[in-house]
């Protein structure tokens, strides 16, 4: 095992994995983290801890990850290239691994212009693919990016993001290939609504032999309301929400949209379970953590597998 973590064990065992998401608080409340974590415990194999998501300052991702570990959940520590240079990143990676964090998700990060400090200086010393590669070399070669040896290399399962819908569409599978070549063990995709386009992307990835070498977790975000669906369609760059989806939500009738949203998400999950090349789902129930147990139950993903260490997986 590369990391000794649960997510890696579940994926290596060939189980259909599920990861969740938890946004750290905009303050020092450990309680707020514990409360969100309580909803996710036993429901997901690992939980992404966002890193200054949407370029808004929040409790540090590594710190929130440590709280989540105390709560019996495995964190997927997100790190963006926007806020740190290579020195700070490597320092945080060492600390994270030393304190028991087993997964890292390497991201470019939303541009600072969107956040609460729009005139801050974006770092972008290295990009997300270079970050993947840096972590890989730290782990497997025991080397810092600068070339020196690491005294006790970090053990991390390396993740990256993929947006199958961003333009240019034909490039997207090549970007996945690049992330694999750089050293990513798994990817989590952008929220998927356009199933047809996603199938096309995963088919290409299958054809190129990528899905045998990298675990792909399909991104799922249930719609809470028609407003949310419209917002994502019109305002979130790189998001592809087909009009059909919105029609279906509208058809659900007053007071039933959220239920319909969850129903759609569960149907998607059922489809992903059968889809060649998809190793699991990444459920992003943003500020909807308390509905996660219901969704995971309804998607027939319970109970979550418990892989005992040394049970045969390499």
């Amino acid at each position, binding site marked *: 095992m590369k990391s000794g973590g649960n997510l890696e064990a579940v994926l290596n065992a060939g189980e259909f994995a599920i990861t969740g998401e938890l946004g750290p608080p905009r303050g020092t409340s450990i309680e707020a983290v514990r409360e969100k974590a309580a909803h996710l415990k036993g429901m997901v194999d690992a939980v992404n801890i966002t890193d200054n998501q949407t370029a808004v300052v929040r409790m540090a991702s590594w710190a929130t990850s440590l709280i989540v570990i105390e709560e019996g959940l495995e964190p997927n520590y997100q790190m963006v290239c926007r806020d740190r240079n290579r020195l700070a990143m490597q320092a945080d990676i060492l600390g994270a691994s030393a304190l028991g964090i087993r997964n890292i998700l390497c991201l470019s990060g939303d*541009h600072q212009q969107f956040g609460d400090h729009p005139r801050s200086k974006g770092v972008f010393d290295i*990009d*997300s*693919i270079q970050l993947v590669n840096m972590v890989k070399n730290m782990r497997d070669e025991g080397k810092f990016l600068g070339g020196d040896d690491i005294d006790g290399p970090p053990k991390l399962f390396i993740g990256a993001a993929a947006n199958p819908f961003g*333009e240019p569409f034909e490039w997207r599978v090549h970007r996945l290939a690049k992330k694999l070549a750089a050293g990513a063990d798994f990817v989590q995709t952008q929220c998927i609504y356009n199933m047809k386009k996603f199938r096309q992307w995963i088919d290409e990835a299958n054809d190129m032999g990528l899905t045998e070498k990298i675990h792909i977790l399909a991104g799922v975000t249930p719609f809470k309301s028609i407003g949310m669906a419209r917002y994502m369609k019109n305002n979130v760059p790189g998001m592809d929400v087909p009009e059909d989806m919105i029609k279906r939500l509208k058809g659900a009738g007053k007071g039933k949209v959220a239920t319909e949203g969850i129903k759609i998400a569960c149907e998607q999950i059922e489809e992903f379970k059968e889809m060649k090349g998809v190793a699991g789902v990444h459920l992003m129930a943003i500020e909807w953590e308390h509905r996660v147990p219901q969704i995971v139950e309804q998607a027939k993903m319970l109970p979550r597998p418990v892989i005992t260490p040394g049970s045969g997986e390499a």
Partner: protein
Amino acid sequence: MIVAEQKPIEEIMKMLHGFTKVLNLGCGGCTSICLAGGQKEVDTLSHDLRQKYADTGAAIEIGEHTIERQCNADFFFHLDDLVKEYQAVISMACGAGVQFVADRYPALPIFPALNTTFVGVDLDVGWYEENCRTCGDCVLGDTAGICPVTRCAKSLFNGPCGGTRLNGSCEVDKELPCAWYEIHQRLKSQDRLELITKVRPAREWVNQTRRTVIQAPYRDRYQK
């Protein structure tokens, strides 16, 4: 060319506070070409300043002079005597010119009239666009002549981020083309996509300390 823009006149007046005799010094180089700091702009700014001072009832005497370039000592000789008559200098050059003037006359307060904006090109008269961040390690040969350091909002080196919009614009602005979308399109049309399918390793930034260039034929002359 280096492109600059005039600072708000209030900001210039704030810097000039307490001085009663200043020289407004134009530059015939880049800032003249981009219509920000040449002879004509020296005229206009001096006129506006006199007007503003008159409005507030304060007294100021503004001399006007433009030299060919504020970034080369050869153009300064007749200026050396002229500046002695003034308490301070307003420079309408880029940041490099302002500093060159300040270094030449260290006893004299120097004030920038412009904000130096970028290295760019003319799109049309009075319309400029940034194209180079002078990073010192050019990758344009691999990126279809489109600079990812300057034109990608995140200075990415390995292709577009997840935010590229469906119309090929950047996540930060619907009106701004995504550099990597353009790089992809152009390399595809040239059938050279293999240039960007390999992982480009983390770059060694060479612009983190002040740089000097001594060209090869002159090494003997300047290097000890």
